[in-house]
């Protein structure tokens, strides 16, 4: 069953067509990667699915329901959580409270189990991404790599059916990348029904995680397939290397 269906999504900013007639689907438990050079429209596509930007035309269907016109917070409560490319923590709040904000949302509240406090739940989520040490530290004192992982923990707090990660490895060093890759793979084993969409530039890390890759170029979908097929695809190589090879 398709969890997410994107039908002919188009967005224009003035004369520029950021996303042009893109359609794809995501199955239950599937991990999909979206790649493409800078300015390919990946983040715009993300913003449209999560409701921060309204598309000019096209539809976003989540579990058979049209969510194109819903506000962002309602989309989150339907079960789509996202992270941001540039980290957006709540800088005045301790790391644990950052996660508790997401647990305070209707969907986050619903998932809190009997006799398990919000604080305990938040601490468990932070432990999963390896941030237990920094739990009480204000977010403004926490480094960039840790904030990236905090974003993931915060997105997971609403127990989404579809998790959308916007460049989760951006600015991470190899050790941090390795750690996040492992925790994402472990999460896939724990929750096999949860689908993931990842936008990423670091193809090496990405290819290890995803089942299927979608390639965008200048707002259009140019290729789709398994990771090993995509790296051999002539069109994709041409786009990435500027047609030199």
């Amino acid at each position: 069953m398709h969890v997410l269906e994107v039908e002919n999504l188009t967005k224009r900013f003035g004369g520029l067509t950021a996303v042009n007639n893109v359609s794809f689907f995501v199955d239950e438990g599937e991990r999909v990667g979206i790649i493409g050079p800078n300015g390919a429209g990946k983040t715009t596509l993300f913003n449209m699915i999560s409701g921060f930007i309204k598309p000019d035309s096209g539809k976003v269907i989540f579990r058979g329901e049209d969510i194109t016109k819903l506000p962002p917070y309602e989309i989150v409560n339907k079960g789509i959580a996202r992270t941001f490319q540039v980290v957006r923590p709540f800088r005045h709040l301790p790391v644990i409270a950052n996660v508790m904000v997401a647990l305070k949302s209707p969907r986050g509240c619903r998932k809190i189990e009997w006799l398990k406090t919000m604080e305990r739940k938040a601490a468990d989520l932070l432990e999963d991404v390896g941030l237990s040490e920094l739990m009480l530290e204000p977010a403004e004192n926490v480094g960039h790599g840790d904030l990236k992982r905090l974003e993931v923990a915060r997105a997971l707090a609403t127990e989404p059916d579809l998790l959308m990660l916007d460049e989760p490895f951006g600015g991470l060093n190899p050790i941090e990348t390795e750690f996040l890759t492992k925790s994402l793979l472990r999460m896939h084993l724990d929750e096999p029904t949860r689908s993931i969409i990842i936008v990423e530039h670091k193809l090496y890390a990405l290819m290890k995680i995803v089942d299927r890759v979608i390639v965008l170029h200048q707002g259009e979908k140019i290729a789709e397939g398994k990771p090993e097929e995509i790296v051999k695809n002539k069109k994709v190589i041409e786009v990435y290397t500027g047609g030199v090879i």
Partner: protein
Amino acid sequence: MIKSYITRGFSSFVAYVFDVPSRLLAFLCLLLLLLLPLVIKGYTAHPYYLRILTGANILAIFAASWDLLVGRTGQISLGHALFYGVGAYTSLILATRYNLPPWVTIPFALLLGVLVALLIGLPCTRVKGPYLALVTMTFPLIMYTIVRSSLPKIFHGELGIRLPFKKALFPFLHIIQQRTAEYYLSLAILFISAVILYKVASSKTGIVFISILDDEVSSKACGINVTKYKLLSFAISGLFGTLAGCLQGYLIRIASPPMFLLTVSFIPIVVTYFGGMGTIYGPIVGTYVYAMLDNFFFDVYFPQLLKWGGIEASTVLGYLELLVFSLIVLIIVLKWPRGIARLVTDKLEDLAEARDLDERGPRIWKRYKTKGQ
């Protein structure tokens, strides 16, 4: 039996107060305020000082309510005078026209205050930053024009509404007793309001308020209905702002158009920056310092100093007062932008940290630690 309950209650109270240094400090401040009238009575029998202190209590409620909205939720409001005026006008109109006692008029005014807050909150949640400040600023100015120039039978125009002496809060008491009673009543209401506001600010809802202040887009991505929480913040803030207006109306026994003026809206801003933004206790400290400076220093001691210097006070005082006060605020904002109240609380937090590392931060994080293990 009863004695054992009392001793047990007392010992647990002592343990509660001595648990955290800042709690002890708050308790000592409250004790000082409780004992102040006794000191003043020995000093002078004039009810003037009590009136000033009562005014400071009411202003503190007003400033603390502004702080919840602006310091915690980040909804910059330059029109808090709206609630002040609505509170005073509603309670006094009900008291004079329908002969209702204070315990009926004040709850009614509070209800109206919350409705007004929700009503102005609806357009205000759609704008941000400087635009929000401008939008909030317009509402009290609209009300100013309305009460001054329309419906003279209800609002009595420029003169405002006067409350006869026999309908005041404690008409049956002698003047000094009346002032003392007013002082203790306002202090009790201030204490309860401050506790409620502080509890709201440090609750889980308060965390959501701070998240909206920090990053609204991120809050939305966390599944938070930002509009709902902003309206909640407006409603709570409006409730206590209206309460301050009601009390002020009953204290000075007049509700007049200047209550809606911009100068009234600016007082909570000044005292909150003075005391410390986003702390709830900061504006209360700031208000007392402001009231002391404004009334005692500038009205009593400052003219005397000028006299000794050979300057006639009445000619220059009006300008000098504003100048000196602006300078003090400027110095504080530049030197201690986190406010004067935080000078003390930061020290206390350092002490607590040195004593026990677990005791930093609000109690909510500590509670997790104790429960989680």
